């Protein structure tokens, strides 16, 4: 039977409430950080790091939780993954994936021949997010839909509209054209 957690007692440092909190949510936190760990020992360490982050500085992080804004399980899942990411980043040297570097930064030419401008707002935030998830995170449509809690058809529609805008924009600007008498 799930134990109800008294948040006020928890952030007040009550030992019994803390133990109940650990028993109830350790499994969730372990599941959330599993993909970040390379082995079982590292996984246990990550779980401990999450609990440490929750209780340190007199439960400072736990005190920021507001039950009227989101469920505790959802909030804990996000905190756990964010903590795991921070821990693993500290343990690994800072590198930038090759594909994350804009092509202009990799160019060996001193100056691009022509700079095609991308107008602000060409794509909406939602369209950029969907394209990011599909093509940078390599997610399937069903995964994106599940993450954003929408219907897969909505994702396809968003993707289609974004592509129409991009094709329209680049078709108008086009590649570098020779000097013409236009205009």
């Amino acid at each position, binding site marked *: 039977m799930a134990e109800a957690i008294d948040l006020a007692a928890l952030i007040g440092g009550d*030992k019994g409430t*803390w*133990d109940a909190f*650990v*028993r109830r949510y*350790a*499994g*969730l*936190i*372990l*599941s959330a950080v*599993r*993909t970040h760990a390379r082995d079982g020992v590292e996984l*246990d360490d990550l*779980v*401990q790091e999450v*609990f440490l982050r929750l*209780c340190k500085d007199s439960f400072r992080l736990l005190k*920021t*939780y*507001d039950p009227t*804004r*989101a*469920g505790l*399980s*959802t*909030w804990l*899942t*996000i905190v*756990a*993954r*964010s903590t795991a*990411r921070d821990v693993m980043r500290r343990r690994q040297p800072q590198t930038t994936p090759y594909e994350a570097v*804009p*092509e202009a930064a990799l160019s060996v030419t001193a100056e691009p021949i022509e*700079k*095609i*401008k*991308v107008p602000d707002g060409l*794509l*909406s*935030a*939602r369209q*950029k*997010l969907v*394209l*990011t*998830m599909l*093509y*940078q*995170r390599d*997610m399937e449509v069903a995964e994106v839909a*599940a*993450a*954003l*809690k929408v219907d897969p058809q909505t994702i396809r529609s968003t*993707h289609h509209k974004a*592509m129409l805008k*991009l094709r329209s924009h*680049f078709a108008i600007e086009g590649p570098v054209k020779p000097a013409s008498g236009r205009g």
Partner: protein
Amino acid sequence: MTGPGDDTKAEAAALWRRFRALEGESPLRGKELPGEALTLAAYAEGRLGDAAAERVEAWLAANPEAVGDLAPAAPGEATQAVLDRAMALVAAPDDADSRVVSFRRRRGATPGWRLFAARAAVAASLLVTGLAGFAMGSNVYSSISGDGDSSGELFDQPLGVFSNGDSAI
């Protein structure tokens, strides 16, 4: 074997890469999301309004590594060792080993006269040291300059090295 769908997907991926290359890095890249985990959790549960959701989506597009945080975690089971280790982070109130004993506070403030006496003593010692040093220095200077001034009563006149030719040995 590639089909029309694969070509379309490859074309779409190329268009997206071209767009990203021209747009450059978002100013939101590496920045913290206002409200952090709570805002993201509210977004994951569909509790945000349109404007707030748009801000989160712009932030997620700039920080795609956080996209994975949105997916719900499958239920898991932690070992007793993991539970014990986490529970130990908060000590029981009657745990003597963890009790912090503060230093006993000194009763009452230091009387004013004691403070004055202490400071006066320090000033006096500095004055005496300064006067003694000045006297010694004057004595050495007199000896070197050959004034024959024996005002430096504190010490005997040095012989030999600092005496001039007129001085009797």
